[in-house]
């Protein structure tokens, strides 16, 4: 109430004084600071060529500045959602997941390996200092390639084909990164929820770097910030993925105004933000963004009592009824967005499990197909998702340009007879007195399925699948594990089968990395050892011993050095086909829904959309800076 009243007062004041201004009156929020000379007026704060977001063309309405969005987070760490949702990136995705320049004025790519980036003239950090090529140079030469900072050379994210890029500072507004071989992951990494870092605010950070700063002052700052040395100091001050340093200049739409620890984190509009709407009004429309820390369990209840103006964090599909009832009592509305997972819950056999008997069974594609055919996906959908999800294998969603219906349909119909036949063929044809199949070595097929133990949804799905599997003579025993030992247990081969999310990004385009489809990292539960082998360049883990999996690895290498979108499409297609055919993971349903709650006065939030981490950066691609408060409603 107080904020609203104060904003109204400010609005009144600015109306009185601002009548003489040109067409684009400054945002009221800064009126006092502009009047006192602390801030230049809006025209002087914007880049010469701001990014114009044409809202009418997007089917939205241009709005007016003002208002505060309150939202709830489950812990202090979750202020990381702010830069993800803010989504100011050098290059970012648009709503159709095409890459476009955002902070950059433009960029050029030559041979898929030489990237020239053009900055916007007159673009400034949130503290008013110019944002120029020097910020890139300082980061690249004094941090990324500084051997004190990174003794082993620049972090792996910058390495392609074993080599870091060459950095060139062309002019104050142009920089160039060139690799020796094509680096298709570069732009998607810039557009990621936590974008690859290429620049830091050099004016702010230089005094803390021994090459530029005064040694005594740095030593004093090290003590004051309670860190060990200047490296930790710079890391702490420059950390932007969790905006904990209110002094750190930023390019995001909202900048932090609260130092932790706190129960409430206030973010304030960035006076130098580089986007405007078609009427020349500087974005973001919303003045303040307030994150309140709560227990994660209470977020649905608090949201349902109108304590949040924009909420998806901490809400689950099962909360929908409660939230919908709140619509009658509080001025909020609930929308259902679509989650971008390849499968809401997937059964994941461990092809690397330590038990010899089980490993050979799990590596038999007939067994995996049989298990997939045995799952009654319609029952799961009806019982747990009100029939609103889509039965599917664990693969891409129809929203992806690479989607083909046969991927989703592969072995995902309910067919216990075929499943039984496949299992018989696979050598599991002997049964005990109770009808339970026996492994070739004579043990009963009691499969312990481990879940990370956090979600009741997983255990519920397992309860249903347990009955389905009984019909094909397999017995599963759900166990909830501690999720922090989950990964190491999988890597140690102690898990035979687990239950987890399906593909994290099921709306991929060919330009996004297909790393989820091949063994590339050691936390992939279907082949942790092969993933570890790839990740460590063959020093750890084991080399894949299935030809199809080796083919996936080869294809992934091919994608990493591909130079054209056509080549990548072909690679993606083959990888998807192998995955659909081999059933490495067994999907249940996808396209499940995620409630997004908003205050009734919030305009421009779409009624439906895709929601997930990468590539949509949660709300990021839907540009929360264009949401506005309709004071009339």
């Amino acid at each position: 109430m107080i904020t609203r009243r104060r904003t109204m007062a400010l609005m009144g004041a600015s109306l009185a004084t601002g009548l003489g201004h040109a067409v684009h009156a400054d945002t009221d929020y800064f009126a006092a600071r502009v009047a006192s000379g602390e801030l230049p007026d809006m025209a002087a704060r914007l880049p010469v060529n701001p990014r114009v977001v044409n809202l009418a063309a997007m089917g939205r309405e241009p709005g007016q500045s003002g208002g505060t969005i309150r939202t709830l987070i489950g812990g202090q760490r979750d202020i990381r959602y702010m830069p993800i949702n803010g989504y100011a990136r050098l290059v970012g995705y648009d709503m159709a997941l095409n890459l476009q320049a955002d902070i950059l004025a433009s960029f050029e790519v030559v041979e898929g390996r030489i990237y020239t980036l053009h900055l916007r003239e007159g673009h400034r950090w949130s503290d008013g200092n110019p944002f120029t090529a020097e910020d890139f140079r300082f980061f690249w030469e004094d941090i990324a390639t500084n051997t004190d900072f990174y003794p082993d050379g620049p972090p792996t994210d910058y390495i392609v084909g074993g080599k870091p890029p060459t950095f060139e500072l062309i002019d104050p507004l142009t920089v160039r990164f060139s690799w020796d071989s094509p680096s298709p992951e570069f732009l998607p990494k810039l557009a990621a929820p936590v974008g690859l870092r290429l620049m830091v605010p050099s004016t702010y950070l230089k005094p803390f770097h021994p090459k530029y700063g005064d040694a005594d002052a740095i030593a004093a700052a090290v003590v004051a910030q309670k860190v060990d040395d200047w490296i930790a100091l710079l890391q702490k001050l420059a950390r932007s993925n969790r905006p904990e340093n209110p002094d750190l200049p930023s390019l995001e739409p909202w900048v932090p105004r609260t130092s932790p620890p706190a129960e409430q984190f206030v973010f304030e509009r960035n006076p130098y933000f580089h986007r405007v709407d078609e009427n020349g009004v500087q974005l973001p429309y919303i003045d303040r963004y307030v994150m309140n820390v709560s227990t994660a369990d209470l977020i649905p209840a608090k949201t349902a009592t109108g304590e949040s103006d924009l909420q998806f964090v901490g809400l689950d599909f099962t909360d929908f009824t409660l939230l919908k009832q709140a619509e009658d009592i509080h001025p909020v509305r609930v929308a259902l967005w679509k989650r971008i997972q390849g499968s809401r819950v997937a059964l994941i056999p461990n092809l690397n499990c330590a038990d010899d008997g089980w490993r050979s069974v799990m590596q038999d594609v007939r067994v995996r197909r049989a298990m997939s055919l045995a799952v009654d996906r319609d029952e799961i959908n009806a019982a747990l998702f009100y029939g609103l999800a889509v039965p599917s294998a664990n693969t891409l969603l129809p929203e992806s340009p690479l989607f083909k219906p046969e991927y989703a349909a592969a072995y995902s119909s309910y067919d216990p007879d075929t499943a039984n036949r496949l299992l018989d063929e696979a050598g599991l044809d002997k049964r005990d007195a109770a009808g339970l199949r026996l492994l070739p070595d004579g043990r009963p097929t009691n499969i312990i399925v481990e879940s990370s133990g956090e979600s009741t949804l997983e255990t519920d799905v397992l309860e249903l699948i347990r009955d389905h599997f009984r019909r094909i003579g397999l017995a599963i025993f759900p166990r909830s594990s501690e999720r922090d030992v989950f990964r190491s247990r999988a890597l140690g081969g102690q898990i035979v089968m687990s239950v987890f999310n399906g593909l994290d990004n099921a709306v991929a385009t060919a330009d996004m990395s297909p790393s989820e489809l091949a063994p590339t990292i050691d936390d992939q539960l279907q082949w942790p050892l092969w993933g570890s082998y790839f990740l460590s360049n063959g020093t750890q883990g084991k080399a894949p011993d299935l030809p199809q999996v080796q083919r996936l690895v080869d294809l992934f290498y091919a994608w990493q050095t591909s130079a054209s979108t056509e080549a990548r499409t072909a690679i993606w297609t083959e990888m998807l086909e192998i995955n659909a055919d081999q059933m490495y993971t067994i999907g249940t349903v996808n396209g499940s829904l995620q409630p997004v709650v908003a205050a009734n006065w919030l305009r421009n939030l779409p009624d439906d959309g895709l929601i997930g981490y990468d590539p949509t950066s949660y709300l990021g691609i839907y540009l929360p800076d264009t949401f506005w408060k309709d004071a009339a409603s």
Partner: protein
Amino acid sequence: MISPLPGPGDPMTHYVSTAPFDPNSMAQHVEQQSANMTTSQWRLMWWKFKRHRLAVVSLVFLIVMYVSIIIAELLAPYALESRNLNAIYAPPQQVHLFDEGQFVGPFVYGRNMTLDLKTLQRIYVDDPAEVNKLRFFCRGDTYLFWGLVAADWHLVCPAKGEDLFLLGTDRLGRDVLSRIIYGARISLTIGLFGVAVSFVLGIIVGGLAGYHGGWIDIALTRVTEVLQSIPSIPLWLALAAVIPITWSPLLVYLGITLILGLLDWTGLARAVRSKLFSLREEDYVTAAQVMGAGSARIIGRHLIPGFMSHLIASAALTVPGMILGETALSFLGLGLRPPITSWGILLAEARSVNIIAIYPWLLYPIVPVVLIILAFNFLGDGLRDAADPYQ
């Protein structure tokens, strides 16, 4: 004055009883008296206990409950794992006796479910045309009695092909009443086993400390002090986290009881210790020592029985703490986990505002928890009052 004494040399004038004399009669009398006293100590306690009317009621209630968990499979209308996907989140059904003014015996109305796709809620409406009479002593879901014998007898079952959810169903259409009945088996025994563990530990540690005193006392006092000064939840968390996940449900259950017992003995040990401090100065202890009895014998044979009644009373007061401890552990996601069904797990599943607002019947497990805990408390109070019958 007449001298009472006879003259010198005269025989004494006295009366001698001719009745037969038993030289052991006095001893016999003492024996008889002591026999009277020992037998009547418990009897006296019982008389005293009976004066606490609520304690008596509680005792009867608890006996009934513990008997009922033996035959849980018979009492529950459904088997533990039965699900009914057509009746997810069904509210409790009311038992009626009269339909349209006519007596038909206990029955429930059939129900029709519609799915409200606007609020994503399943809505159940009674169908008064469909009268489903309950069946008693009937055949229903099959189960393994005590995990051993297959059977399908139930005390009460729904009409054939129909539903009977007296306390509603949960998110997978499982009957809440049946789950409460099965959960009682875990929740009621977890307290007893836990108390047994803490009892043994408390008596040994408290006994040694109280009887020997000196450095043993100091060391043991420090240990109890250490355990008491750390909040119990972190201790539970740590111990529960080391239970390997590959353990079978039965082992996990035993592990949890052990944890609950391990962390609870300090109070008992302190009580034993302070009692012993006063008792060990009694003469009968000195007598036993003089006769060469060892300390284990003195503690076990002479001292502990002296305040056994107190120990039993405080044990009765410890059980509720254990039952609540299990619910707290389940709430924190540690301890017992599905598919084991305990009251703690049922309550932990019902802990969101969602449930209270939309499916409040999932909170029914709270009723037996409260009743059991009240009963144990009153029983403990009654026992404690009765523990010293001579007062």
